C-alpha cells in the first residue's frame, strides 16, 4: 500500500507532468489576480443566438487552430525526429484554395462549402506529400525540406488569389468561424473535438501509433522488423496536411477573408512549442497527442492572460519567452536530477535526525 502511494506521482502523470503543472500554475495565478477571470456568461450575438462568453471560452476557442496543428505536428515529430515549419504557409495555401472554390460558384451553399473543403484538403495533402517525399524518400532533414515551402508558400497563396485578399460573406462561413445557430459552444471548439476523436479512432483501430513510435525510436530496427518506414513518414506528413487544411479553413472562416500574409502567422513556432510543452521529445519517438493539445491551450491561456494584464499585442512575445524558458528549465533533465538528489539528501538528513 505504502509503495503504491509512493509510486503514484511518478507513474500517474508521467509525460503530462509539465503541461498539467503549467495549466495549474496559470489557473492559480489568474484566480489570485482576478477571481472572476474564468467566469462564464451567456450573451446574445448579432444573430440573436444565445452564446457562451468569457475568458475561458475565448482561450478554448482561440487555441483551436493551434490545437489541430499540434496534433499533426506531434505525429510528424514522432516519426521523423524533426518538425514541419511550413504549416503556416501551407494553411495560407489551403485557405486560398478554399476561398477560390467558394468564389467560383454562383452562391454559397452547404454543398459548395463541402466541395471547397475537400479541394483545400486535397491541396494541403499534396503539399504535405511533397514535404513527406523530400523527408522520407530523399532523407532530407524535415526542417530543411519544409524550409522550401516556408519560403514560397505564402507567395503561392498570393498567386492563387491573384494578388488580392478576397472576402467571403455567407452565414455558413460565419457559422464555421464563430457560432452555429442553436449551439452555444463556438464551432471551432467542436471541430477540434471532432478531429481529436477521429485521431483517437484512427489510433484505436490501426496500429499507426505504435508503428510511428517505433520508426521514431529506431528507424533501422523498425525497417528490419518489416515496417515500411518510408510510408509511415510520408503518412505522418499527409495527416499533418489534413490538419493544416482544417486549421486554415477555421482561420479563414473566423475573419471571412483570406489574407496570405497574416493568416496563421508564426503558427509553426507555436505548434512546435505546443508539442514540446506537451512533454514530447522533439527528437522523435514516444508521443502523447493529449500532451500537445494541452500544450496548445497553455500557450493560448498565457497569451490571453498577458492581454488581460494590459500587455500590448506586440510586446506579448517577450513575456511569453520568459515563461517558456521557465517551463523548459523546470522540465530539463539536469534540473530534475539535481532536484531529486536534493530531495534525497533532505530525506536522509531527516531520517538521520529521527534516529538521533
Amino acid at each position, binding site marked *: 500500500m505504502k509503495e503504491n502511494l509512493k509510486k503514484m506521482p511518478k507513474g500517474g502523470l508521467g509525460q503530462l507532468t509539465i503541461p498539467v503543472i503549467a495549466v495549474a500554475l496559470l489557473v492559480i495565478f489568474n484566480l489570485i489576480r482576478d477571481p472572476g477571470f474564468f467566469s462564464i456568461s451567456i450573451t446574445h450575438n448579432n444573430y440573436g443566438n444565445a452564446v457562451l462568453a468569457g475568458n475561458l471560452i475565448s482561450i478554448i476557442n482561440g487555441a483551436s487552430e493551434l490545437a489541430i496543428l499540434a496534433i499533426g505536428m506531434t505525429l510528424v515529430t514522432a516519426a521523423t525526429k524533426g518538425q514541419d515549419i511550413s504549416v503556416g504557409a501551407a494553411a495560407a495555401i489551403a485557405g486560398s484554395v478554399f476561398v477560390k472554390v467558394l468564389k467560383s460558384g454562383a452562391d454559397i451553399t452547404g454543398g459548395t462549402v463541402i466541395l471547397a473543403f475537400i479541394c483545400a484538403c486535397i491541396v494541403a495533402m499534396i503539399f504535405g506529400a511533397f514535404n513527406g517525399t523530400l523527408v522520407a524518400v530523399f532523407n532530407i532533414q524535415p526542417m530543411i525540406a519544409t524550409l522550401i515551402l516556408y519560403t*514560397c508558400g505564402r507567395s503561392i497563396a498570393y498567386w492563387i488569389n491573384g494578388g488580392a485578399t478576397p472576402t467571403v460573406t455567407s452565414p455558413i462561413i460565419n457559422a464555421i468561424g464563430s457560432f452555429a445557430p442553436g449551439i452555444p459552444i463556438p464551432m471551432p471548439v467542436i471541430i477540434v473535438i471532432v478531429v481529436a476523436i477521429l485521431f483517437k479512432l484512427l489510433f484505436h483501430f490501426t496500429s499507426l501509433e505504435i508503428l510511428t513510435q517505433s520508426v521514431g525510436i529506431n528507424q533501422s530496427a523498425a525497417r528490419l522488423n518489416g515496417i515500411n518506414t518510408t510510408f509511415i513518414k510520408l503518412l505522418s506528413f499527409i495527416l499533418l496536411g489534413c490538419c493544416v487544411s482544417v486549421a486554415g479553413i477555421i482561420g479563414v472562416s473566423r475573419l471571412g477573408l483570406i489574407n496570405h500574409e497574416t493568416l496563421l502567422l508564426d503558427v509553426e513556432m507555436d505548434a512546435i512549442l505546443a508539442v514540446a510543452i506537451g512533454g514530447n521529445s522533439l527528437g522523435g519517438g514516444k508521443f502523447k497527442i493529449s500532451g500537445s493539445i494541452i500544450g496548445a491551450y497553455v500557450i493560448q491561456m498565457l497569451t490571453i492572460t498577458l492581454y488581460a494584464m494590459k500587455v500590448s499585442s*506586440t510586446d506579448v512575445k517577450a513575456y511569453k519567452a520568459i515563461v517558456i524558458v521557465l517551463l523548459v528549465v523546470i522540465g*530539463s533533465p539536469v534540473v530534475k536530477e539535481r532536484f531529486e538528489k536534493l530531495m534525497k539528501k533532505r530525506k536522509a538528513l531527516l531520517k538521520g535526525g529521527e534516529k538521533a
Partner: protein
Amino acid sequence: MNENVKKKREPLNDTQLLMTITICIFIVMYLLAMALLKGGFLHAQQIFDLLNDNASLIIVSCGLTVVMIGGGIDISVGAVTSLVVMSCILYLNKGGNVLLALMLALGIGLAFGLVHGFLISYLEIQPFIVTLAGMFFARGMTTILSVNPQKVDHEGFETLRNTKIEIPWLGYVAKNGNLVPARMELGVVIAFFCIIVVFVILMFHRLGRNFYAMGGNQQSALMLGINVKKTRFLSYIISGLLSGISGFVLMMHTGAGNATNAAGMEMNAIASSIIGGTLLTGGVGNVAGTFFGTMTLTTIKKIVVSSGLKDPWWQSITTGGMLCFFILLQSIVLGKRQKKKKA
C-alpha cells in the same frame, strides 16, 4: 612514381564536395546572368551592391554555420540583429558614443549567446526551443523599446556610415563620361574580417576541429576527451557575438531601425548555410561555402527582379524552387557517395 602521385591526391571530403558544387553553380549562374540579362550584371558594382546589401546576412550566416557544424541550431539570430539595431539607434540618438554603441551591440549579442549556451549545453534543453524563446524575447524587446521606426541622428555615426571604400579600377564610365568608381561599404570589410576569423578558427584552431568532432559524433567526441559541453557553449557564444556585429553592420547600412528589421533573416541564414554545404545534422560545413551560399541566394533574388518578373510572388517562389534544387542535389550526391562507401 605515377601511382604515388595518384595516391597522394585524396578524394574531396563531403564538406569540400558540397562547397565546390555551390561555387560552380554560383559562377555558372552569374555568367549566365551576365550573358542573358546584361544590364547591371556586366558592372563590377553589381557584386559590390550584393555585398553591401547583405553584409549583415553574411555575418549572421557565419555564426549559424558554426552552430550547425556543432550539431545545433540558432533561430534567434535575426531577432537579435533587429534588437541590436534598435537599441544602438536609441542609444546614439541620446548623444552616445559610437565606440560604446559597438560595445553595446557586442554586449547584447554576447548576453544572448551566454544564455542560449548555458541553457542548451549545461541544462540540456533542446536548442530549437531555447533559441525560439530567444527569438520571441528579442522581437518583443524590440517593440517594447520602440514601436515606431527610428532614424539615426548622430554626426559621428553619419560620417562612419558614409565612409565608403572606392575602387577606381573596377569602376565604369557613365554616360556623361565621368568615371564612377566601385563603392564598397565598411560593413563588407567587417563581414570579410568575420569570415576570415571564423574560417581560421574552424580550420586551424583546436576549438574549430572540436566543433566538427562534436557535430559528427557527440559520443566519440566525448570519448576523445573533448569537453563537449564547453564546446557547445562556445559555439552559441560565437553565434551570439556575430549576431551583435551583424546588427551594427545592418545599422551602418540602413541607418534606421524598425520593429520588423531583419524579418525572416534567420531562415535566409539557414538557407545560405545549407546552400553552402552545411548539414543540419552537424559535422559537415565550411564558412567559405556559406559565403557563396549567401551570394547564390541573393543573386537569384536579384536575377528574378531584373529579369522582368514583376509580380511580387515570383521572388519567393523562385527562391523556394532553387532551394529545393540545391537540397535535392546535396541529398542525391551524398546518398551516392554513401552507397559507394558501403560497396
